[in-house]
């Protein structure tokens, strides 16, 4: 009887140890997968453990895997589940805020930043992130209030603070181009409207096309007269390209303005991302 009790106790203990050991092994395996950049496989393992063990490490690793796979919204939600007691707390919250910023969900990003409980070292980082979001929203007043002005800047932030100030002055100094002016310029000199919009190559190409069709039409008109079929044909082609050039010039200004804004946004996002990698990695 004693032997049976001891044997059954031993079996129970070993099963318990086995379960714990396999979970630990699983975490190590997930950690290895993430280090080897096998994020899809890591997510499969993490999803398996998700409902079973509520662990900060699990939420952090899931957030990191999703962030690496550029599923930023899901990543942010996973990062936000990491609790204050965890060693990954600050990294998770800042990256959650960055992920929301990248997906243009500025309100959620600001809410996340507001709720972070900070150490004195990270206060400047929070201020810097706020200033970056203000610049993305083109809220220059908030940017002026939020930007880091003191001389004692964290080394990880120094270059990016300077870059953000340069981007701010670039955006402020740029005068948006006018669509009607580009159309008018192209009507007078074909292609000049596109050059005004900053598309020099396109302007030259349009100018060559319209000029060549115009010259052919004029030649036909001079030699064969206006009622000749060739004059009418080349005249129609010239008209189509001439009006198309004016139309294209008007839209090229709109596209040029959008491209400028997109480029500035990408640069701002890059500059608010780098300090997070420097400080937390």
């Amino acid at each position, binding site marked *: 009887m004693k032997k049976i009790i001891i044997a059954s106790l031993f079996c129970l203990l070993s099963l318990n140890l086995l379960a714990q050991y396999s979970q630990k092994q699983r975490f190590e395996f997930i950690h290895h997968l993430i280090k080897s950049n096998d994020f899809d496989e890591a997510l499969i393992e993490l999803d398996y453990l998700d409902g079973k063990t509520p662990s900060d490490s699990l939420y952090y690793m899931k957030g990191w895997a999703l962030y690496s796979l550029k599923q930023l919204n899901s990543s942010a939600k996973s990062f936000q589940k990491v609790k204050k007691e965890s060693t990954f707390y600050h990294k998770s919250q800042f990256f959650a805020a960055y992920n929301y910023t990248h997906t243009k969900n500025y309100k959620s990003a600001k809410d996340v930043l507001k709720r972070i409980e900070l150490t004195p070292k990270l206060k400047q980082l929070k201020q810097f992130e706020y200033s970056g979001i203000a610049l993305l929203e083109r809220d220059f007043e908030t940017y002026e209030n939020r930007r880091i002005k003191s001389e004692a800047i964290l080394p990880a932030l120094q270059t990016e603070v300077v870059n953000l100030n340069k981007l701010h002055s670039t955006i402020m100094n740029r005068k948006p181009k006018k669509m009607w002016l580009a159309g008018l310029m192209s009507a007078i000199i074909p292609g000049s409207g*596109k050059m005004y919009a900053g*598309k020099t*190559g396109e302007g*030259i190409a349009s100018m060559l096309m319209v000029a060549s069709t115009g010259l052919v039409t004029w030649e036909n008109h001079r030699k064969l007269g206006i009622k000749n079929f060739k004059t009418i044909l080349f005249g129609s082609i010239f008209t189509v*390209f001439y009006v*198309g050039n004016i*139309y294209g010039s008007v839209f090229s200004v709109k596209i040029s303005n959008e491209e400028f804004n997109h480029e500035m946004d990408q640069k701002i996002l890059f500059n608010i991302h780098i300090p997070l990698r420097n400080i937390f990695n």
Partner: protein
Amino acid sequence: MQKLIHPSCNIIITLILVWGLCLPSKAQSVEKNNLQLILKTKTNTLDTHKHKRDYIYKNESSWLKKYNPVSLGFGSLLYLYQNVISQQFSADCLYHPTCSDFSKDAIREYGLIKGIFLSSDRICRCNRIAATSINYFKFDQKTHHAHDSVNLYRIKPLTKTEYK
């Protein structure tokens, strides 16, 4: 002895002949395997499947739009160009969608006149000189074509509900 040598020589010669006939078929099977391996990688140059492109007003419900002479004329020319003439060119368009697909989309979205003017502007831009002005953010990393959709050519941007 001589009687024995003569049939054995015949056997050897026939064996050599048979072996020689097998060689080309072996070479062919090796070549076939190599071709299959190359085709597996699915490079553009070996993509033999010709994609047939649809007529511009194929799914158009309005009878007037579909069967009026001007639409039929332009639609047929575009169909002929896309499915017959374009297949003969080795050159590739700088943009995605291609110029002919762009003009199809523009005519469907904005009507015939505005569509033709946008298409003429696109043709003016589809060359090496104009390519120097293309913003590097527009290039697709995989296909190396610049994105230039018809939706960019609206005065007012699409709202979320209107976006297709």
